[in-house]
């Protein structure tokens, strides 16, 4: 293939727990003409360690990330917080590497690098979008995900009230301050339910794990679907719910 050579960094969480999201990124990027590779030596960007106060453990992970990804034109991660970790914090943890500056969150890569907004997706559902904190404030993705969603055929986009409020995940915060995290989640779920959406989407499976875990517990009947899976869905190959 002649398109840009893109390495996929699905993140350890998605690789392990949400493989459908990673498969969706592969499908989407290949449909858009990219030459996608998944270097098998990758593991984790070190975000959990770094954010919890274990920067010394994160340091070798940052170095390993550079070794794995330095030779690619672009690295794409379907996660605002992991892309943010790599771009903002890796340069302080190990010597500046090409990999860190060439790492993109999915919506940035699509809009800024590939220059597409209409990715030819079809998703006939009522959807609301939660802008995750790190994509919003660390990476500054702005309305890129919304522009991508607006171009999806069949999709009815409904605005999420108080969208920019944190869902309460915050990595180990969700365990260390579980009660506060849950109080934040409760408000987020109320806002999601107020929209009447069938699906809540975001660019980060960690936040969706929090929101989805809460919605499932209260049997709210609203599903969480990663942005990549919506964008990968087409008339011919529609998105199917995993059990």
């Amino acid at each position: 293939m002649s398109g840009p050579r893109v390495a996929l960094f699905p993140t350890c969480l998605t690789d392990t727990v949400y493989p459908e999201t990673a498969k969706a990124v592969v499908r989407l990027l290949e449909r858009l003409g990219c030459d996608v590779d998944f270097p098998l030596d990758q593991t984790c960007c070190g975000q959990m360690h770094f954010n919890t106060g274990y920067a010394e453990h994160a340091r070798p992970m940052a170095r390993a990330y550079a070794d794995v990804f330095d030779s690619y034109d672009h690295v794409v991660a379907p996660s605002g917080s992991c892309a943010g970790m790599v771009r903002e914090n890796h340069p302080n943890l190990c010597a500046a590497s090409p990999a860190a500056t060439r790492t993109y969150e999915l919506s940035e890569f699509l809009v800024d690098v590939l220059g597409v907004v209409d990715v030819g997706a079809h998703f006939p559902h009522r959807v609301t979008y939660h802008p995750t904190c790190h994509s919003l404030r660390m990476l500054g993705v702005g309305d890129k995900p919304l522009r991508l969603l607006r171009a999806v055929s069949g999709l009815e986009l409904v605005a999420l009230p108080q969208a920019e409020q944190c869902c309460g995940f915050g990595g180990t915060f969700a365990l260390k301050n579980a009660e506060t995290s849950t109080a934040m989640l409760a408000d987020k779920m109320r806002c999601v339910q107020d929209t009447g959406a069938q699906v809540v989407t975001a660019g980060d499976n960690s936040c969706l794990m929090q929101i989805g875990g809460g919605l499932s517990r209260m049997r709210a009947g609203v599903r969480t679907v990663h942005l990549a899976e919506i964008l990968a869905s087409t008339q011919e190959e529609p998105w199917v719910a995993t059990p």
Partner: protein
Amino acid sequence: MGRNPVTWLGSPTFPDAARDALGDTQLRGNLRKATTTIRGKRESAVAELGDWEELRRAGESVKDDVLANLDTYLERLEAAVTDRGGVVHWARDAEEANRIVLDLVQAEDTDEVVKVKSMATAEIGLNEALADGGVNAIETDLAEVIVQLGDDRPSHILVPAIHRNRAEIKEIFAQMPEPPTSDDPHALAEAARKYLRRKFLSAKVAISGANFGVADTGSIVVVESEGNGRMCLTLPETLITVMGVEKVLPRWQDLEVFLQLLPRSSTAERMNPYTSTWSGVTPGDGPQKFHLVLLDNGRTSTLADEVGRQALRCIRCSACLNVCPVYERTGGQAYGSVYPGPIGAILAPQLAGDLHDEQAASLPYASSLCGACYEVCPVRINIPEVLTHLRAEVVEAKGKRTPEAMAMSAAAWVFGDRRRYEAAQKAGSLTRFLARDGTLSSLPWPGSKWTDTRDAPVVPKESFRAWWRRNRG
């Protein structure tokens, strides 16, 4: 040297205190209402200025210059104040500052002083120290009056009684000589006014903090809304100002930047109602004796920390509290310090200077790192960066033998090698057998911290990499 009172003795750790606060639905209602309103107002006040980002950068760079040359500017300030008839005192810590102030008050032969709202004096527990010395310190800011008469603790930098509603305030004011007739805001304010007027007219000594101290001119600046400050700063014979050393500004012109940044961020006003400034003593006008107490209390040791020192840029606007999703739900008292919210989470543990203390060590974790605070901070303090930096210091203080440190080491060891990572993935996917009807609703500790309130995802049999290998490998 005594214990630094910036964190309250005997306070529970943040998660414990938060648990209690979260159960208080009245508190959560009061806070949600108050913070949501001020948040929206701040946004519009800031949006009016086309050069807000430039102003923030200007504020940041002036403060960074101050911090880099603190000694020079402080000596300049001391000389200018002395030149204009004031007396400058240096206090290393809370104990020293309290002693200096008590001595000065006693020298005036009085047992009652009026106070302008001040974070520095609250930080050092001045009122309590004065009370121990037989001096009654009367707060005159309306919200401070509510806290003081309610025998309560503050929960917000700007509005220390933000956790109280009108009905509660009426009850607290019942002890005034002329109590309010209803919980109508006018009636409450009128009662406070009558109570305070007597105090203003009889006080011989006033105590204030300072928002800024201008090195070049020796001018102290106090910014306020109610006019109670103006009364205190002009009526009594003697004025004592306690100012954190980081509040110094090099030049008078620097106020141009900060008098725009502060009110818009703080009360969402273009300009605050009262800005008082004085330089030493003016014969025949205002207080005839002026003392400036320059307070360190952990500031120079904070300054020594290259990442943490940016917390000293803080101008106490409280914008970070108002946007913080954690603060909105737990309130300020859960932080166990006069400095709550995001700034409290980075400033209180640094000033306290002891991360072996469980309570102080819990503060940097009182955040989901959402970054809303950094976005609004008028002097661009990267609060999330300082939080993770302090977390690393907490981890170091706790040592390698805690269950968490051992779990983190194990996780790092797993992530350190692809084969170990893949083996762990396979082991993790076995948890799918714990699932019922496709949901995983109960895990053993510490996973129970998750599943108490949320379902956990079911780890599928085949990871993405296994799929990739099968299809593309």
